[in-house]
C-alpha cells in the first residue's frame, strides 16, 4: 500500500508544471518534477541520490538557511550548455500528516530573462545619468494627481540644492528670476497643465546660492485616457553658452560698427572674387544695398577693363598669398564714374590655414588726387613763370651789362684822351650809348608792364575793323613799298581781346611782313581768320624773305633776336606780341620758308576771361 501511495505521489509530482523538488532533511533529493530536472539539466531517470548543495555551489549560506526550517528564496546560477542561467529557488518546509517536518519543498524558476532585463535597465539608467551630467541636462516630472514634483540629481545640481531637497511647484517657480522669467514660466506651467501645450524656453533662474543662471526649460504633458496625468520635462544649464553667444554678438556688433563706420570701403571676396561681405561705405559707393552686392563679382559692378584688372589682382593674391598693400587703382563704375583708390588686398585664411578668399580695403583718394593734380598744375605754371623770369633776368642783365660795359670803356678812353677831336668822337659815342640804354629800358619796361598787368580787360572786337584801322595808319608806309593787302577776314567776325594788344599784334606782324619783304617780289600780305572750336586763329602771311626755322626756330620770338641785316631790326617786336598773346591766354606759331615767305598764326583764347 505504501509503495502504491508513493508511486502515485511520485507520478503527481513528476507532472507538476512548476518546477518542484522534494528534499530530505539532509538536503538529498527525494523526488522532483521533470521540469525541475530539466532546469538543472539532470536526466529524467536519474537516481535521486543527489544533494542540493552540489547543485547550488555558489550559495554559501544554503545549509544554514535550511536548518532554520523557515521559507526563504535564493538567487543562484548554473552553467547549462555553456550558457549562464539565472535561477530563483523558493524553499518551504515539507510537513507530513502530523505536521512534522520531514524535508524541504523547492520550487525553482529560470529568471535569466528578468535578470538580463534588470541589468539592461541599470545600464540605461547609468547612461542616462552620465548623459545628463555631461550635457548638464536635468529632468523633472510632475504628477498631476498627487501634485508631487520630482527633480533628478542634475536638476538639483543646477539649482544648487542638496540631493535631499524635495521640490514643490511653488518653490520651483520661485527659483525663476523675478520679472520676465518668473512671469513667463508661470504662464507656461499654467498652459501645459490646462491645455497640454508643450514649451521650450530660455529663462533665467536665481540658484539657492544666489547665482543668476541662464537655463533652457522644457515641458511636455503626458496623457492617459485623454487626461493629463503627468508632466515631464528637461532642464538645462545654458549659462555658459548664453554668455558665449552674448560675447560673440558683442564682438560681432563691435566689428560691424567698426567696419561700417570706417571711412574706407571694405569687402571680403571668395575664391571666385564674389563678394561675401561689404561694409556701409562700399554699399554707399556702389549705390546698392548689402543684399544686392553679396554674391556679385567685379564684372557685375564695374567697367569691363577695370574688372579684369581687379580679378587679375585677386588671382595673384590668392595664388602667391602675398598681400597687395596701398596700391593706387582707378575704379570705373558701370555708369562711368571714375574714382581713385588706394587699395589693399589681403589673403583670407580659414581655420585650417587654407586660403578661402581675400579681404579688400579701398580708400577713396580722388579728392587728394585732384588736389595733387591742381598742385602739379600750379607747379607747372609756376615753373613756366619762373623760367620766363630767369630768361627775362638774363635779358635784362645781358642788355644792361653790354651798355654799362660800353660806358666804362668809353669813359676810360675819355680819361686818357688828349686830342680834342678824338674826345668829341668819344662823347658822341657816349651819347649814342646813353640813347641805346634808354631805349632798352623802355623796351624792358613794356615787357614788364605786359607781364605784371593782372586784370586784363578783354572786349569783343570786330576783327575786320581792327585790321582796317591798323592798315589805315600804315597806309603811307605801305604805299611807299607797293604793298598789296588781301584781307579775307569776315566783316562780322568778333573776337575777345585787349584792344591795345590786338592793335599791337596786327601792327607788328604787318610791319614785319613789309620790313622783311623780298627785293625780288612785290609784297603781298594775306590776312585770314578761322574759327576752330572755341578758338579764333588769325593768320598773317607774306611772300617776303622768310626765316630759316631749322636754324632760328627756337629763337624767333626771343628778345633782341634778329635774323636779317636791317638797321631797324631791334628784335623786340615779336617778343612783345608773344608776351601780349600769352598774357591773354593765347599762343603764336610761325611757318616759314626762306625766300618764299612767312605765315604767323595767332590763336586767341576765347574762353578765358
Amino acid at each position, binding site marked *: 500500500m505504501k509503495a502504491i501511495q508513493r508511486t502515485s505521489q511520485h507520478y503527481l509530482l513528476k507532472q507538476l508544471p512548476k518546477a518542484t523538488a522534494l528534499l530530505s532533511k539532509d538536503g538529498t533529493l527525494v523526488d522532483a518534477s521533470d521540469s525541475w530536472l530539466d532546469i538543472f539539466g539532470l536526466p529524467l531517470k536519474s537516481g535521486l541520490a543527489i544533494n542540493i548543495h552540489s547543485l547550488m555551489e555558489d550559495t554559501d549560506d544554503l545549509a544554514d538557511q535550511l536548518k532554520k526550517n523557515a521559507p526563504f528564496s535564493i538567487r543562484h546560477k548554473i552553467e547549462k550548455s555553456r550558457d549562464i542561467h539565472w535561477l530563483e529557488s523558493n524553499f518551504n518546509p515539507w510537513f507530513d500528516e502530523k505536521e512534522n517536518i520531514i524535508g524541504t519543498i523547492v520550487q525553482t524558476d529560470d529568471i535569466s530573462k528578468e535578470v538580463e532585463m534588470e541589468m539592461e535597465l541599470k545600464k540605461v539608467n547609468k547612461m542616462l545619468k552620465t548623459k545628463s551630467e555631461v550635457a548638464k541636462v536635468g529632468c523633472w516630472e510632475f504628477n498631476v494627481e498627487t501634485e508631487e514634483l520630482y527633480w533628478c540629481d542634475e536638476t538639483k545640481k543646477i539649482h544648487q540644492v542638496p540631493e535631499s531637497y524635495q521640490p514643490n511647484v511653488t518653490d520651483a517657480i520661485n527659483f525663476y528670476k523675478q520679472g520676465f522669467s518668473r512671469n513667463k514660466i508661470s504662464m507656461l506651467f499654467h498652459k501645459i497643465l490646462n491645455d497640454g501645450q508643450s514649451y521650450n524656453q530660455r529663462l533665467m533662474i536665481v540658484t539657492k546660492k544666489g547665482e543668476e543662471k541662464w537655463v533652457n526649460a522644457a515641458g511636455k504633458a503626458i496623457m492617459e485616457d485623454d487626461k493629463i496625468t503627468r508632466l515631464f520635462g528637461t532642464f538645462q544649464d545654458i549659462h555658459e553658452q548664453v554668455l558665449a553667444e552674448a560675447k560673440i554678438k558683442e564682438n560681432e556688433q563691435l566689428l560691424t560698427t567698426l567696419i561700417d563706420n570706417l571711412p574706407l570701403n571694405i569687402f571680403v571676396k571668395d575664391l571666385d572674387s564674389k563678394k561675401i561681405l561689404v561694409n556701409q561705405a562700399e554699399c554707399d559707393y556702389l549705390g546698392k544695398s548689402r543684399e544686392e552686392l553679396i554674391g556679385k563679382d567685379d564684372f557685375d559692378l564695374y567697367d569691363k577693363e577695370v574688372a579684369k584688372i581687379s580679378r587679375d589682382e585677386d588671382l595673384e593674391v590668392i595664388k602667391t598669398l602675398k598681400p597687395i598693400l596701398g596700391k593706387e587703382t582707378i575704379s570705373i563704375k558701370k555708369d562711368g564714374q571714375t574714382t581713385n583708390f588706394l587699395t589693399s588686398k589681403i589673403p583670407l585664411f580659414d581655420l585650417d590655414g587654407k586660403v578661402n578668399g581675400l579681404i579688400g580695403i579701398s580708400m577713396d583718394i580722388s579728392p587728394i588726387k585732384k588736389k595733387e593734380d591742381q598742385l602739379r598744375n600750379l607747379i607747372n605754371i609756376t615753373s613756366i613763370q619762373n623760367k620766363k623770369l630767369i630768361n627775362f633776368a638774363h635779358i635784362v*642783365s645781358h642788355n644792361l651789362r*653790354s651798355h*654799362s660795359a*660800353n660806358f666804362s*670803356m668809353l669813359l*676810360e678812353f675819355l680819361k686818357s684822351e688828349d686830342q680834342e677831336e678824338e674826345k668829341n668822337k668819344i662823347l658822341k*659815342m657816349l651819347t649814342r650809348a646813353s640813347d641805346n640804354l634808354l631805349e632798352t629800358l623802355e623796351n624792358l619796361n613794356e615787357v614788364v608792364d605786359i607781364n605784371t598787368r593782372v586784370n586784363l580787360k578783354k572786349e569783343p572786337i570786330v576783327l575786320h575793323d581792327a585790321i582796317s584801322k591798323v592798315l589805315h595808319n600804315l597806309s603811307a608806309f605801305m604805299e611807299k613799298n607797293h604793298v598789296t593787302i588781301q584781307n579775307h577776314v569776315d566783316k562780322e567776325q568778333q573776337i575777345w581781346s585787349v584792344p591795345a594788344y590786338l592793335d599791337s599784334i596786327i601792327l607788328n606782324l604787318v610791319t614785319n611782313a613789309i620790313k622783311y619783304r623780298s627785293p625780288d617780289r612785290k609784297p603781298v600780305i594775306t590776312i585770314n581768320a578761322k574759327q576752330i572750336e572755341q578758338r579764333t586763329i588769325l593768320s598773317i602771311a607774306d611772300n617776303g624773305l622768310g626765316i630759316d626755322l631749322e636754324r632760328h626756330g627756337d629763337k624767333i620770338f626771343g628778345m633782341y633776336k*634778329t635774323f636779317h641785316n636791317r638797321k631797324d631790326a631791334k628784335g623786340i617786336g615779336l617778343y612783345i606780341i608773344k608776351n601780349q598773346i600769352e598774357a591773354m591766354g593765347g599762343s603764336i606759331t610761325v611757318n616759314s620758308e626762306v625766300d618764299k615767305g612767312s605765315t604767323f598764326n595767332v590763336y586767341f583764347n576765347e574762353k578765358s576771361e
Partner: protein
Amino acid sequence: MKKVNSIFIVDDDPITVFGIKKMLKPVVVCDDVKIFQNGKEAYDVLKEKKENGGSIPDVIFLDINMPIMDGWDFLEELIKLEIQERIIINMITSSIDPLDYKKWNEFKPRCPHTLNFKNKPIFKIETSDLECMDMAS
C-alpha cells in the same frame, strides 16, 4: 710795335667796334682791319679767301650775340672750313652767362685755332691777345 697782316672784327655793336679799333692802335700796326656786322658776313669772306687763296686773318675779334649767325655758329662753320693757318680768336662778350663760358670750354679742344674768352668791358688789348700762345711758349 707788332705788325699784323689782317684783323677781322665781327660785332654788330658800333661802339664796341669803335673801342676795339681804338685799343688796337697803340699795340699793333695793321693795314687790313675788316668789320663785319654778323658771323655770316665774316664766314662768307673767309670761305671765299680759303677757296681762292686769299690772305687768312691773323686775329679775329668775335662777338657772341649777333643776328643771322652768332659767334658760336660762326665758330662751328670756321672749324668745318679746315683752314691750315692758325688764327687767334678773341671772343668778346658782355655775357656773364655761365653757359657761354661752358660752351667756350667745350669749343677750345675742338678748335685748332687759339680761342680766348674776354668779358666786356675791356679797356686795353695786350700784345699777347694778338699772338699764338702755343707758339710763344
